[in-house]
């Protein structure tokens, strides 16, 4: 058997047979874009927003989906890192040209992203994962964000506001210096409820405090959907509140991910099965968004 292979120089690699792919969760077309860093804006000593030119991903990604970023060049750090898509940037004609990531410095990879300069090229794989399911009016959307968990809510809020959904953002951080883009959300017409653990902005304490009050005071007849992203204890607290007040919720979980495509089984989370019992589900393809009541906390 003879085979001929020619090197195809393309800016990104597109799946060969996406039209016959029938994956219920992941995007039909996964691409790996050599994305140029077009901006890197420091927000604080630990947070930055990095903009990456990736039209193929920007035009396709849905709120709640993520990308796998190859932050290093050699083999150390080796694995890609998962990041929610924060914003979608558009040119003057409205075409999606770039995505941004809201990055928090916690280790070797996020440190590289923190100081990455304009012009640097990073491979970005996506869009990946099961997105949020946006609601329609008259359902109200309550977004609950803890720290860097704000990331998937910029695109979700945009989608919801386009549908004229009434949106409230409950946003908690350690301190005033950990809260970002509040006026951005307000300009979109999103009501914001802020908390900080040290009381430097908004209410002192955890974000679940005002959330619980709101759940108690809202009219039972008013349908709501809660969306949550943040540290796992916060997600668990939100899911418990949802159950207590008999409200639906969607939570986006963060697990250590080796591949983002369902190949390695590193990213599992325990999920209830229909017929009772539970099993480990790969959160990269079964999630990262789950119904709050699906997960065994």
């Amino acid at each position, binding site marked *: *058997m*003879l*085979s*001929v*292979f*020619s*090197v*195809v120089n393309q800016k990104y*690699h597109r*799946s*060969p*047979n*996406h039209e*016959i*792919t029938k*994956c219920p969760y*992941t995007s*039909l*077309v*996964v691409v*790996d874009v050599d994305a140029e860093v077009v901006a890197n804006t420091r927000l604080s000593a630990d947070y930055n927003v990095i903009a990456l030119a990736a039209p193929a991903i920007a035009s396709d990604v849905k709120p709640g989906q993520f990308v796998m970023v*190859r932050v290093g060049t*050699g*083999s*150390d*750090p*080796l*694995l*890609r890192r998962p990041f929610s898509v924060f914003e979608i940037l558009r040119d003057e004609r409205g075409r999606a040209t770039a995505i941004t990531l809201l990055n928090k410095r916690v280790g070797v990879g996020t440190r590289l992203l923190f100081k990455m300069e304009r012009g640097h090229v990073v*491979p970005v*794989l996506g869009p990946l994962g099961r997105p949020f399911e946006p609601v329609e009016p008259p359902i109200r959307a309550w977004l609950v964000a803890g720290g860097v968990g704000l990331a998937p809510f910029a695109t979700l809020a945009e989608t919801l506001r386009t549908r004229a959904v009434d949106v409230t953002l409950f946003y908690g951080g350690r301190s005033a210096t950990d809260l970002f883009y509040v006026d951005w959300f307000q300009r979109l017409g999103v009501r914001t409820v802020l908390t900080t653990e040290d009381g430097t902005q908004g209410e002192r304490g955890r974000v679940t405090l005002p959330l619980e009050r709101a759940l108690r005071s809202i009219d039972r007849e008013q349908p709501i959907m809660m969306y949550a992203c943040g540290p796992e204890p916060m997600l668990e607290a939100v899911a418990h509140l949802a159950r207590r007040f008999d409200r639906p919720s969607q939570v986006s979980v963060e*697990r*250590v991910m*080796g*591949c983002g*495509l*369902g*190949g*390695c*089984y*590193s*990213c*599992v*989370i325990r999920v209830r099965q229909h017929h009772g019992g539970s*099993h*480990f589900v790969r959160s990269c*393809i079964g999630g990262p968004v789950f119904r709050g009541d699906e997960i065994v906390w």
Partner: protein
Amino acid sequence: MVNPVDLSVRLGPLELRNPVIAASGCFGYGVEYAGVVDLATLGGVAVKGLFLTEREGHPPERIVETPSGMVNAIGLQGIGVHRFIREKMPELRDRGATVLVNICGSTLDEYVELARILSDVEGVAALELNISCPNIKEGGITFGCSLPGTHQVVSAVRRVTPLPVIPKLTPNVTDVAAFARAAEDAGADAVSLVNTFLAMVIDVETRRPELSNVVGGLSGPAIRPIAVRMVYECRQAVKIPVIGMGGIASARDAIEFFIAGASAIQIGTANFVDPFIWGKVLSGIAEYMTRHSIARISDLVGTLDTTAREQQWTSS
């Protein structure tokens, strides 16, 4: 213009369209990657290790990154052979994948039973016997770490299946070539190596192990030189073909294994880093063969030149 080169390989009774195979446990059941790579363009797909029954695997954390590598203790979470045949095989067949089923058992009987069941399934090209998983206590490795055990499990499976039998060897032994010989004596059609190296990572701040299973298996570029050496040793020791793997992340790395004596190679960890690696490695191999006027990939296998360096030394 790239001249046509012949990338097809013959591993005993097993014919592959090219020598690049997706490594077990690093490519799901194959179908997960159908949206990224045309499975029919791969030499083969070694699916995630299967037991007779479903397995839950270890709780997280299951992986941790290390310098140029990663340590995993997934614990062989899996859907079991019956669901695999029902739910995954039809799609793998439809997509034209050459399927190597990686099987694991806790007992000899389980290996035999798995081999029997899979022998009747259309589209299964070969059985890769996982006797080398370092992450589960109850079996597999107990065969893979003992010469009589290896011989016993390979010959038992050999007796019940017409499929090509490829034991996958562990590097966690003193003399891997002796295990390749035991497998050959027992009737293996080929051997594949290496599985992961037993390893461990500790969080020094908390003094806790990074993995829930405490220990796991090291893979990735960090292990490549050791894997190349082991493939080389096995190639010297046996006549059956050797399938090499361990840290391959480029065409250059693959070629190193061919020269050391691998008739085909597998890619595991590097697929996590770049799921589009397959076309790049295949075209890189073809380009190398053209550049070196090698018409058939088999002409490259085991061509290590050990004389050149000695001459250089004597002449300097």
